[in-house]
């Protein structure tokens, strides 16, 4: 029988876990100021993330999904995007969001149970966190469709987790993007675990990147702990998309070094040896080694940067903690452009029964 279709999936790694180049480096990788910038961002993400977990543990933040171990993917994606592109995150990609200007205070505000955290001061065109799994992939495809129709040279980037690739919406997004050659890049962050379910129980495929094949689009797997490989791959995919070449599916292989969220206890279902092993491959060490070997980073700089991050984090936490409880009006004020009468009435009821004083502090008119 003749073969009518074949596929292969390539794997990209540029910087190995010891900080050695194992492939031809892209131009940015030998621009040490660039690399320092990415490394600083990765460190900043990790330090902030640790603080957020700590705030939850001490009852000062709600349930929080740690990004520990995902920093290379997050910063690689962020550095490859242009500001005018659109990000459709899931709920763990704070590194990319912070790169794009989302503030630490906004992140804490959202996870602190307040929608004002979604009202980004920068990156105003990015989508907000997306908890219903895989739904954001279609939003990114839709945004890309808008760019195409409006003839804007912009791209959309959608994140999704390994578990999310089991959802129908994910395949629908790939299919649409392929069929219409949309300027969108899908990034599957394969961290091995969907809460307690490992990838091997999620799917029988060898790679998640090959899910692109059925949609007729390119798929590639990269070392998700290698910021060079991630940035280079995403940048190339964005370049293709921007030139009308259509979408790409990128699988970044990494590891969830934390629990799923602070409400989870991975000790119930995960072998600690596996986690220990994963720590040896984590993404920060290799970049630091690479920079140190090139004489572009030092222990003193490391310490100074950590101190600077700590100051920034403390200030953000301070802002977050002194933020006021939202007014009960906030439940009503943003539901419609113009408030229907029944909501005006219900807003009055909410004010009357507000659980703490200051329920009407937003200064909105009473609507009577």
């Amino acid at each position, binding site marked *: 029988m003749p073969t009518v279709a074949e596929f292969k999936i390539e794997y990209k790694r540029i910087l190995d876990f010891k900080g050695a180049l194992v492939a031809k480096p892209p131009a940015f990788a030998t621009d040490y100021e660039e690399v320092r910038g990415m490394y600083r961002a990765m460190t900043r993400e990790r330090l902030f993330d640790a603080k957020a977990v700590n705030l939850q543990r001490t009852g000062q933040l*709600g*349930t929080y999904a740690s990004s520990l171990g995902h920093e290379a993917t997050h910063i690689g994606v962020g550095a490859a995007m242009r500001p005018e592109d659109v990000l459709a995150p899931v*709920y763990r990609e704070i590194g990319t969001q912070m790169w794009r200007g989302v503030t630490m205070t906004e992140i804490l505000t*959202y*996870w*602190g*149970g*307040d*929608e004002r955290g979604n009202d980004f001061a920068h990156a105003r065109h990015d989508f907000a*966190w997306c*908890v*219903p*799994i895989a739904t954001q992939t279609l939003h990114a495809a839709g945004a890309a469709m808008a760019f195409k129709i409006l003839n804007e040279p912009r791209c959309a980037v959608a994140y999704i987790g390994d*578990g*999310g690739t*089991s*959802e*129908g*919406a994910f395949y629908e997004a790939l299919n649409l993007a392929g069929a219409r050659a949309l300027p969108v890049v899908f990034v599957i962050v394969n961290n091995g675990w*969907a*809460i*307690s*379910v490992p990838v091997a*129980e*999620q*799917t029988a495929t060898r790679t998640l990147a090959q899910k692109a094949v059925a949609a007729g689009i390119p798929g590639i797997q990269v070392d998700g702990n290698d910021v060079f490989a991630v940035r280079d791959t995403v940048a190339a995919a964005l370049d293709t998309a921007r030139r009308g070449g259509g979408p790409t599916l990128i699988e970044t292989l990494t590891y969830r070094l934390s629990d799923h*969220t602070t*409400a*989870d206890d991975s000790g*119930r*279902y995960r072998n600690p040896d596996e986690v220990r092993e994963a720590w040896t491959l984590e993404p920060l060490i290799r970049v630091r080694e690479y920079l140190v070997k090139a004489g572009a980073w030092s222990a003193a700089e490391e310490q100074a940067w950590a101190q600077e991050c700590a100051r920034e984090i403390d200030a953000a936490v301070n802002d977050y903690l002194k933020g006021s*409880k*939202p007014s*009960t009006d*906030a*439940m*009503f004020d943003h*539901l419609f452009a113009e408030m229907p009468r*029944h*909501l005006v009435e*219900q807003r009055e*009821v*909410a004010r009357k*029964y*507000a*659980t703490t004083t200051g*329920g009407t502090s937003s200064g909105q008119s009473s609507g009577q």
Partner: protein
Amino acid sequence: MAHGWEMQHDDRVVVIGQDVGVNGGVFRATAGLQARFGKHRVQDTPLAEATIAGMSVGMAAHGLKPVAEIQFMGFIYPALDQIVNHMSRMRYRTRGRLTCPVVIRTPHGGGIHAPEHHSESTETLLCHIPGIRVVCPSSPARAYGLLLAAIRDPDPVMFLEPARLYRAMRQEVADDGRALPLDRCFILREGSDVTLVTWGAMTVETLRAAVELDARGISAEVIDLATLSPIDSEAILASVAKTGRLVIVHEAARNVGVGAEIAAIVAEHGLYDLAAPIQRVAGFDTVMPLFKLEHDYIPGVQRIVDAARLTLTD
């Protein structure tokens, strides 16, 4: 516990869902079941709600009794296509040839300081679907008895588990395999002046309101609806015939809520028993807010007390 009993006594019962296996469910509802009954009968599914509902249809039509978990009610929507178009009408459209004895369990309601989409109470969407039952227990004992009844029922049952009662309420429950009746209310407190109808976690606030009303000399009867669809009209009408006043309390949004159906039933069949207009105390017609405001959304005791008193003023 009800899972365990029924799996022990009926080989056709299987448990499926996200993280129900080794992890035992994010609320620990299926803890230990996989170790006890094996990976075939207690299966982690891929992360896909349409998969969970759709495979339940297939399994149920062919000899099994799936008890499926949707991890949070806010994630049930991809499953609705399967529930509305297949699960609920398999018996009907095949004239009884194929059936769907499925239970879909999902946490219900807020008040647990959870992230976005984890605190929904959208039971109305389910109650509107012909061919399924919707059940919402209000205590561990009723969860046990009603879940057994739901699993044994030959038709699909949506089983909504009040999330804030998972942690708030502890109760010794005899693991004796005794089911409680579906399609029946439970009278939690007898009274003569006003009937308070509620379900799920709101029974807690409503019972507290009844105590406060009692202190003001008002005798409130508290009814736990338990089965939200179909509604036990007889019990509600009998209570209203006695008290002449009705307050319906639910956490879900007011607009087209289950409370509206109860009010319509009483308007149709018990209007002349009413001494005052029916009152509804419900969640607002807004999105369930993130947790900083969730207790401003969920009706509190004072709102219930005030509504009950309103039915007693001229």
